[in-house]
């Protein structure tokens, strides 16, 4: 059963003096239980709007949304206790200390005070917990936001750019934390611009653009679907090898000092063709498409068609 399921969600913002802007244009989002689900898209693609709709902060114009099997926002109060969220920059009361901000939130939901200390410790903010939030760096605020999201010990965690403002060590800690949460059965929906991060820790991914889903599925499947089936070949005599491969019917080109052969599933046929002319490849490597490349291709395609 999907933990988060949104179907045909539409949201249009009316703008004074301008044409209305469709932030969500029939967006579908399905997140299965457990693991980390990446939610990607360029700026203005509708990611945050979708998350805000799920959490009841914005009202969609149309569509259906379910979280933990309950329709939201109508039954959001019954699932909010199991849902932790961090949206964009965390919104704490600046004159209060980090600890007090969390204590007030915990008190409102009857969460024991020990949990406040535990989450502060988890995000390594215990030492600065008695400082006012207005003196926090962006990274510290982000840690506090993650702490607030974890306060309820949620089974669903919705995070919008959680690594924003964190230093490299902090980003790595957050990655480990999210991966550990995902492995422990928590369903993490992670919206991020850091495609490397998403590729590293996400099991599944949904890429959106212009308020619509461009592609969704397991990260490996998405990468495979964007793979061209090309193989890079390392040889000593590049020019002769190019001519041999051309004569053998391969589509080969020189790119960045190496030969790229398109449309070949098995490298052995390339090696065989070259060896027949006493040209022996020193290496053969399938050309990998990373998530960044897939993302850019997908969103560029989408942009050009819309």
């Amino acid at each position: 059963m999907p933990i988060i399921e949104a179907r045909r969600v539409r949201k249009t913002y009316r703008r004074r003096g301008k044409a209305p802007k469709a932030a969500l244009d029939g967006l579908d989002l399905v997140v299965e239980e457990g693991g980390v689900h990446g939610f990607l898209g360029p700026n203005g693609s509708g990611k945050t709007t979708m998350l805000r709709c799920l959490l009841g902060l914005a009202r969609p114009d149309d569509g259906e949304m379910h979280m933990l099997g309950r329709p939201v926002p109508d039954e959001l109060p019954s699932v909010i206790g199991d849902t932790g969220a961090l949206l964009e920059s965390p919104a704490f009361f600046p004159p209060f200390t980090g600890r007090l901000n969390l204590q007030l939130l915990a008190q409102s939901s009857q969460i024991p005070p020990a949990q406040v200390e535990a989450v502060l410790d988890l995000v390594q903010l215990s030492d600065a917990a008695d400082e006012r939030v207005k003196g926090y760096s962006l990274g510290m605020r982000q840690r506090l936001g993650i702490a607030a999201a974890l306060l309820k010990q949620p089974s669903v965690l919705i995070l919008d750019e959680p690594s924003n403002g964190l230093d490299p060590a902090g980003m790595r800690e957050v990655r480990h934390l999210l991966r550990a949460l995902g492995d422990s059965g928590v369903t993490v929906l992670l919206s991020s611009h850091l495609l490397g991060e998403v590729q590293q820790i996400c099991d599944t991914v949904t890429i959106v653009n212009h308020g619509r889903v461009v592609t969704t599925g397991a990260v490996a499947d998405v990468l495979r679907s964007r793979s061209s089936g090309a193989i890079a070949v390392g040889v000593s005599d590049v020019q002769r090898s190019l001519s041999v491969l051309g004569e053998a019917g391969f589509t080969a080109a020189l790119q960045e000092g190496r030969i790229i052969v398109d449309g070949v599933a098995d490298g052995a046929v390339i090696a065989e063709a070259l060896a027949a002319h006493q040209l022996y490849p020193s290496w053969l490597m399938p050309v990998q498409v990373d998530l960044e490349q897939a993302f850019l291709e997908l969103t560029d395609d989408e942009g050009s068609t819309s």
Partner: protein
Amino acid sequence: MSLPTLDARPTHKALPLLRSELSRITHRRLFRVLALLLLGGIAFVSTIVFFVHSPETGWSDERVLQEQATAQASWEACVASIPSDKEPERRCGQAPAEQPPNRFNYGADDRYHAYQILPIVILGVCIAASAIAFIMGASAGGAEWSSRSMTLQLLFEPRRLRLLIVKWVGLSITTGLLAAGAILLGLAFGAVTASLRGTWDPSYSEFEIVHDELGQTLLYMGLRGLVLVVIACTIGYAIAMLVRNTGASLGVAFVYFVFVENVVRFALLRYGAQPFLLAENSVALLVPGGIPVIERIEVGQDLSGGEVTMQLTNLRAFLTLLGYTALLAVPAGWSFSRRDVG
């Protein structure tokens, strides 16, 4: 890295939320400063009043005796000027010495009006507390929007109206308690002044309503004052929820009281605007029995006529203020429950 397992799932009950709100409010440094300003101001003003109020004692008795001697002398002169067979009492009245000194003899002495400062103390304290309550209401709403902490709270309590009502209740309790404390402090200082600088003897009173039931009058004034404080806090909070900014809320109040209400008061006086003004209704709610206001001005064809006054009673003032509060609070609640939250 792991979290301790929660024994119970987070709850979403109103009482813990209210407790959290009360903690949030009482931890606000601005609110503490405002409370200190109010209570400190009352103590400061009361101390000054104590020292300037009838500092000389014994003066009045001497003057009353002097006035009585003068009156006696003129009565005796009057009696002496009338033949003995002509009933001098009919011409000159009763001998002044036979009349005990009464409140009219002491009318010029502030000491014998000292206890009358108590209703004025409540009036002043409640108006000051209402202003503070308005600022607290506006700041509570505005600060939450500017810091977006309201958004974070909605992730813990998504029932917006419930959250709004709990916040309003928390603010009302806080401002109400602060006002009650301020009234008690003001009354305590006032009572000390009245005791040491005057008399509690109601026979000297010129205000019958105070004369008869001073304690009850003060109690009812205080309770009406608390109502005014809660109304002021609600209006401040409602405006802040509509404009989502503290400064704008205070600006709206400033422009209203300094410009709009004065313009309306004078420009529309003849059309009966005065009974509907916030300032008049606020005072009318506090003053025992209300206050007289100009209902309209009637001018005849020969330019004769004049002001027609009416009594703006406590009840009417309360209903008018309640109406204004509803006019702001209902759209604020509706807007908060419907609008997108950033």
